[in-house]
């Protein structure tokens, strides 16, 4: 498998939501294409949009039409491997789970892809701390719309 050589999930292993769903509102994207025994996302989703099936090793499937973009699964996933994306016109947003020292809201940051390579600049639009997320933060980054499938990290430039 190409992914185990590289250490991350390549685009061809990820189920991306269709454009019209991305334009409606935030939608969850799972990057979890390897069978590991894990299922907290299924229990956490308030609308039952995530399914794994009988075998706990199976890969989660997200029903994009049912997903409301609430972000609860992002902070529950032990692997920090669920993200949210949204786009409107030329502007795009990515929300990611985060467990390092946080940046400030409004801060400009370097946007990084899955390999940690800089792909552009963006702004930290919002940081959410939910009690049920137990110290995992949700950070929403604003960026150019065409970057939402590439950006999965950021680096503070200051």
């Amino acid at each position, binding site marked *: 498998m190409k*992914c*185990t*050589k*590289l*250490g*991350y*999930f390549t685009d061809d292993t990820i189920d991306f939501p269709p454009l019209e769903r991305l334009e409606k509102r935030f939608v969850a994207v799972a*990057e*979890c*294409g*390897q*069978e*590991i*025994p*894990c*299922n*907290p996302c299924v*229990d*956490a989703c308030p609308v039952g949009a995530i399914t794994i099936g009988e*075998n*706990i*090793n199976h890969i989660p499937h997200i029903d994009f039409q049912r997903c409301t973009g609430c972000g609860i699964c992002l902070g*529950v996933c*032990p*692997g*920090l*491997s669920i993200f949210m994306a949204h786009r409107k016109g030329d502007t795009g947003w990515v929300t990611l789970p985060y*467990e*390092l*020292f*946080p940046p400030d809201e409004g801060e400009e940051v370097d946007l*990084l*892809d*899955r*390999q*940690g*390579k800089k792909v552009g600049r963006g702004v930290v639009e919002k940081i959410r701390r939910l009690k049920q997320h*137990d*110290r*995992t933060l949700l950070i929403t980054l604003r960026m150019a719309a065409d970057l939402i499938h590439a950006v*999965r*990290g950021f*680096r503070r430039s200051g």
Partner: protein
Amino acid sequence: MRLEQHPILEFHRGRRITIDFEGRNVPAFEGEPIAAALHAAGVTTLSHSVRTHSPRGLFCAIGKCAACVMEVNGIPNVRTCIEPVRQGMRVRRQSAEHPPPGNPENFMPRFHEPETVETDLAIVGGGPAGLSAAVYAGRFGLRSIVVEENYLVGGQLIKQTHKFFGSRSHYAGVRGVDIAAILIREARDTGADIWTSSSVIGYFPEKELGVIRNGRYLRIRARNILVATGASEKMISFPGNDLPGVYGAGAIQTLMNVHGIIPGRRVLMVGAGNIGVIVAYQLMQAGVQVAAVCEGLPRVGAYLVHSAKLLRLGVPILTAHTVSKAWGNGHLKGVEIQAVDSRWQPIAGTEKRFEVDTLGLAVGLSPSVELLSQAGAKMCWVSELGGYVARHDEFMQTSIPGVFVAGDVAGIEEASAAMMEGRIAGIHAARRLLGPSTELDSLHREQAAELAVMRDGPFGEKARLGNQRLLKEA
């Protein structure tokens, strides 16, 4: 250097005290081990090798190796990684030309008729396996004693900042450090007696253990024994591998996540299995730079979700690379790695050098089977399980009736598996004393089924095959 802040953890430091290190006052906090206080004060050379006099530093930080043994208040060979500091403690390095002073009578345990304590279940090791066994046996009224050689209970869970995988019954989504707190509370609630700073030094038939507790020798006469002693970190050979600054990855976690002391400023990690990748990520979390992770295999062994977290922070993982040498004068200064071909031969011209003050080794674990082997349990070599393990049946019972195993000592696997095996051992200790019952049998079936499901995925393959081989031999 001490961490004041951490995005996930809070460090509850005790009273500020002072210890004496070779005539110099070193500040320390009550509740931390000697080796940690010395690290915070910049002392990383804790001993010297007897033959070459080369400096040695902390390696395992959980009392399994001898790299940190020092002379404490005139007593030689004290494992300073699991010995808590006390006000005015005198600590010095020992070496061949530094023999311990004074009369051995001052530190040799005195011989006396040992007190004997009786229990239903003696558990050796207070990690996830041992504590889970205490909880399950305790539910059926068994009295258990958990003997833990560290002064802290919880095994390796206490240094895990990440949320665990699995399902709800295995505390999925809960951070390892919090699972430890839950298990300790549950074990105490079900009546387990937890003895910290207590070392089992030998097994005597029929089911007696010799224990040193608070410097005093005593015996436990047990109706059942569970050996849940865990595992120790493996080492690989390269010039400079014994320099202070070269740590087992677990030691870095202990210093950083339990005691809030970072090992250095810039780190190279060896091994891209789960441990190497998780510890590299935790270093970034604590604000330490990670130069890279290198891995001898041509692929990442860790869960991809773990390695993906690290890569998107900008830390490269170099597969098919191994360490060729490390150097430094008294402490690590740099490391050279080299690409290897499919037969693990270094490829000339591919050397890369890193200026790092810390090297983490996450190159596998060996089950800590010494007690089982001394007890005469039938052992066998199962490479999938990490080396020598005791033969055991599906109830986790070894070839000695009433002596059980669970956790990494029964085969290297995850903490979730350790908890399930511990539960199974606890259930069967109860079954041996109380006889079969539908409740015990259905609990066993439930735990065995969950374990089987967990091992059913691709990551469970090694454990599945290893345990199949073991059952055939039993």
